[in-house]
């Protein structure tokens, strides 16, 4: 109910700022009131929801290229107090996500036990499932994007990679690159795709540009993240739940009842969550309604099997569409404003060059070349796109002053600017023309050794 009231408030608020959309507002209120009535009629937990039932569940398996549900899984729909199999014709089904209008469900499923996971869609009200992605490899964790597109994770020789495709087909667009596993977690309301990799959370725009870690506080393993209505990112870490808020650069703990939690969580209201929880590690995860602050969560389902991945069947705001601005140019233009803006101890004036490394999906790292770093700490290079790269800073003697630990990539035609080297997302740029752009507005050519052309 709180959720619905909040939606009412949001609809009214947004409509007001849009202009006098009286009819729109009225229609929204009527729809929400009907929804309220329907929920009241169900009793108990008012909202309908879907979850994955499995006898075995390893939430971290995908990041190790493994199988999360080695003994199979089945999606269950709980509506009006009754439970039913959502995709009864499937040998396995999991990873449900509900369309913005709450009419359809996207999920990963196997028609036969030996099949790879594929992406399917079916109406919430019932009916035949429609295959969205046909792949020889596993395709899992789908999410709806605005503009009738989806994003999902596809197994490749380099690991799971994020891929976007139109709901009605067309060419898939790979969003992530380089060795390692990336698993989609959510689509944020600002349009970015939230994903997990290396046990950390990252975001990328829906055209594959702008990849970056969500925070740079380097906490313990994070997975199963979801965006709450407040904009906070709630995730599981070490069997507990924690959150990122907009205001803080570091993870904040959530004060929880004792026990173990498996992400993701479904937000029932600003004060209640539907969680996968078990009081002790020996028990399977069950679904619980936890009212924030209360000592014990309320059990909803008897845990005969693992009950995980809860998702509510209710309308939600459509995320903002991201207007891709990739240019028609080779490689990616990467500008760093000031390498000395860093959480690392890099002495002012100590850096002479930046070395750029690349790594193919299966290969070992190779040096693409080096470029000078200006006195103000700026450099501007054009490495290849869709390739895993990382930077290394060298002092005047050629000794490594700082090394980027992770690999990242850029899309073809992408132009990107960094505040510094490991500056953290909380650091906004200083307003100054970087000296490297006063020298030339063209990227500095990378060379293997010696000077600069």
């Amino acid at each position, binding site marked *: 109910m709180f959720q619905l009231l909040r939606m009412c408030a949001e609809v009214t608020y947004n409509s007001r700022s849009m202009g*006098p959309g009286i*009819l729109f507002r009225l229609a929204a209120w009527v729809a929400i009131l009907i929804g309220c009535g329907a929920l009241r009629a169900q009793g108990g937990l008012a909202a309908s929801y879907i979850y994955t039932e499995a006898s075995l569940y390893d939430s971290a398996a995908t990041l190790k290229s493994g199988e999360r549900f080695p003994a199979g899984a089945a999606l269950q729909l709980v509506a009006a107090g009754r439970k039913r199999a959502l995709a009864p014709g499937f040998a396995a089904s999991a990873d449900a996500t509900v369309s913005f209008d709450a009419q359809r469900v996207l999920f990963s499923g196997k028609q036969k036990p030996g099949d790879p996971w594929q992406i399917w869609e079916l109406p919430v009200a019932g009916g035949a499932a429609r295959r969205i992605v046909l792949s020889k490899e596993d395709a899992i964790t789908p999410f709806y994007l605005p503009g009738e597109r989806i994003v999902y994770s596809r197994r490749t020789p380099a690991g799971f990679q994020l891929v976007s495709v139109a709901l009605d087909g067309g060419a898939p667009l790979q969003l992530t690159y380089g060795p390692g596993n990336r698993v989609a977690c959510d689509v944020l309301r600002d*349009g970015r795709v939230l994903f997990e990799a290396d046990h950390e959370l990252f975001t990328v725009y829906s055209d594959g540009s702008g990849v970056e870690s969500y925070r740079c506080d380097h906490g313990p393993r994070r997975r199963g993240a979801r965006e709450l209505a407040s904009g906070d990112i709630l995730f599981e870490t070490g069997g507990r739940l924690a959150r990122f808020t907009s205001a803080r650069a570091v993870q904040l703990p959530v004060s929880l009842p004792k026990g173990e939690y498996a992400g993701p969580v479904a937000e029932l209201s600003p004060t209640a969550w539907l969680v996968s929880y078990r009081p002790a590690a020996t028990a399977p995860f069950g679904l619980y309604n936890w009212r924030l602050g209360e000592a014990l969560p309320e059990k909803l389902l008897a845990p005969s099997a693992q009950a995980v991945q809860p998702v509510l069947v209710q309308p939600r705001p459509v995320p903002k569409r991201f207007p891709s601005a990739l240019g028609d140019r080779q490689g990616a233009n990467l500008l760093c404003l000031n390498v000395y803006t860093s959480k690392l101890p890099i002495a002012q004036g100590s850096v002479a060059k930046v070395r750029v490394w690349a790594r193919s999906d299966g290969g070992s790292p190779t040096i693409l070349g080096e470029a000078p770093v200006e006195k103000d700490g700026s450099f501007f290079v054009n490495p290849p796109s869709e390739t895993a790269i990382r930077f290394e800073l060298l002092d005047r003697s050629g000794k490594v002053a700082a090394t980027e630990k992770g690999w990242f990539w850029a899309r073809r035609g992408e132009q990107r600017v960094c505040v510094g080297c490991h500056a953290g997302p909380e650091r906004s740029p200083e307003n100054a023309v970087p000296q490297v752009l006063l020298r030339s507005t063209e990227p500095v050519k990378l060379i293997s050794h010696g000077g600069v052309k």
Partner: protein
Amino acid sequence: MKLSAISAYSARRLFSLRLSLRSLRRRVEVVFPYSFGFASLGTVLIGGIVALSLATLGADTPAAARFSSPIELTLSKDGARLFALCEGTGEVVAFDARSGKIVRRIKVGSVPKGLALSPNGERLYVANSWSDSVSEIDTAALAVVRSLPAGFEPNSVITDLAGRFLYVANRISNDVSVVDLAAGTEVKRLAAGRGASYLAISPDGASIYCTHIYPYPGDFRAPPESDIAVIDTARQVIKDRYRLPNAAGVFHVALSADGRLGMAAQLRPKNLIPLAHVEHGWVFGNSISVFGADVGELVQIPLDELERYFTPPFAIALAPDKSAAYISTTGSDSVTVIDIPRLLAFIRAASPAQRRTLANDLSASANYVVTRIAVGTAPKGLALSSDGKRLYVANRTADTISVIDTAARKVSATFSLQGPATLTAERRGERLFFSARFGFQGHFGCANCHLESTFDGLQWDLEPDGFGQDIVDNRLLEDVAETAPFKWNGGNPNLETECGPRTEKFFYRSESYDGWELSDLVSYIKAMPLRPNRFRLAGGELTPAQERGKAIFERTRTKSGAPIPEANQCQVCHSGKHYTNLKMFDVGSGKATDRSPMVDTPQLNNIVLTAPYLHDGSARTLEEIWTVFNPKDTHGVTNDLQKDELNDLIEYLKTL
């Protein structure tokens, strides 16, 4: 009414009619015909028929729709009456501060911008920005009793504590008028910052603080600089200036009741780095300059968060007990609340190095911002009751006043200015113009660069052309409807192109206006009037210097008698009503970093207001256009002119 006028009017009415269809438009992706050229006779006739049909439906005229646009607030001394200054209707609306009932509407001058109560509460002073005057209102009679002089475009007023002198910040003349209230005459002018705008007095009355909204024209591509001028009220001189590095767009300033803490609302633009994306506060820092004995050296603090922005900060109200600061953020439709003790503790704990970079730390606000309170659209002026319990917020484009219960930190009531029941396309467009909700994560909106629908005096490095290339100077938006093409390279044939997908892709970096909204926004921009020219004599005649400048502007021969090629005469390219022939030329001002030397001929109306000049803002003054950037006489023949002749030319340009 001419047929063309009818057709244009009918087009506007069509926009109005669509109000009832707005719910449908979200479901049906209608591609609206943006252009209402009505070039053909047939179209004109159809337009006329539509207009007549609408007339029979009893449609009102566009002129009937005048929106109050409350912009500033103040309370009577006993707190019983709330005065709302309405920019749109040119009036002060007196409310019963408790009930919200309108007591009186008092007509003042044109486009009023600032108001202040006299120390004894008997008089209310209103700065009439387009009338260049101050209205004096008797608060008992609720009537204007006198008109006082001011400089060009008075924006804010305040009296000294004795009520003897009135100080008026003048935005165009960049100064502060000192008016003797007994005599009703201006006795002094004090040089303030560029675009002098907002005033606050210290509790002991010794100092008056004055901000300015446009940065000083500095070196090309240097960080913007602004300051707060401090007036010694005893001597009536500027005694100090607080330097505000990298600030541009400084609005209200406020002092605490004990005089130990000052706060000024400001933007910190990031115009010198390529606008390649928006996240991480890439385009603007929404900030407060904190100064005074409580903090020592001035420090700039951020209002933003990592994923949310609160922009632009406009007005500040400080609780009498210095427990909280309230800041209206116009584009974000909210009021930010700062816990002042926590803020001071945070600042005092910071090292000197941390204080210098604090404004760029998006996680800092978590240490002192306690909440954001949603109010109406485009909140501007604030008024806090003397007990600090009620905060009034002027919602400019909502035509309402939000009343905030400061203990509950919630809106407890909303007063209505009782404006037109139906929004016009222009008004809807105005709301969009001031809103930041279309920028990625609500980072910024049109009004962040076009401050209060004008310009920002800055040059920006936009991304689509590459990094460091095609630096562009921001231009004034007034009266631009007939000056297509747009953008310095003439790349946008109309405003729909200028403000539509291009803005979404390269500025906002997020889904923005649909076709209807874009149409509304363009309607608003096209309707922006040109502000009065302050340099023409009342009768329209020119001064001798202006006459001499006009002759230079229109000359066809050099001083030696040689003919000037037509393409190199000022009056040829800068011709017509807007002093532009709407064509592209290479006038030799291109830089190595420009992709093309061809530039759109800019309109010259009110050109004197918008320094710096040239497409990239490289000329700090009009004179530099000719003395620095025209060595080969490719931008008109000017090298045969002496200094005094260039001065004459400038005097003439001021009149355009």
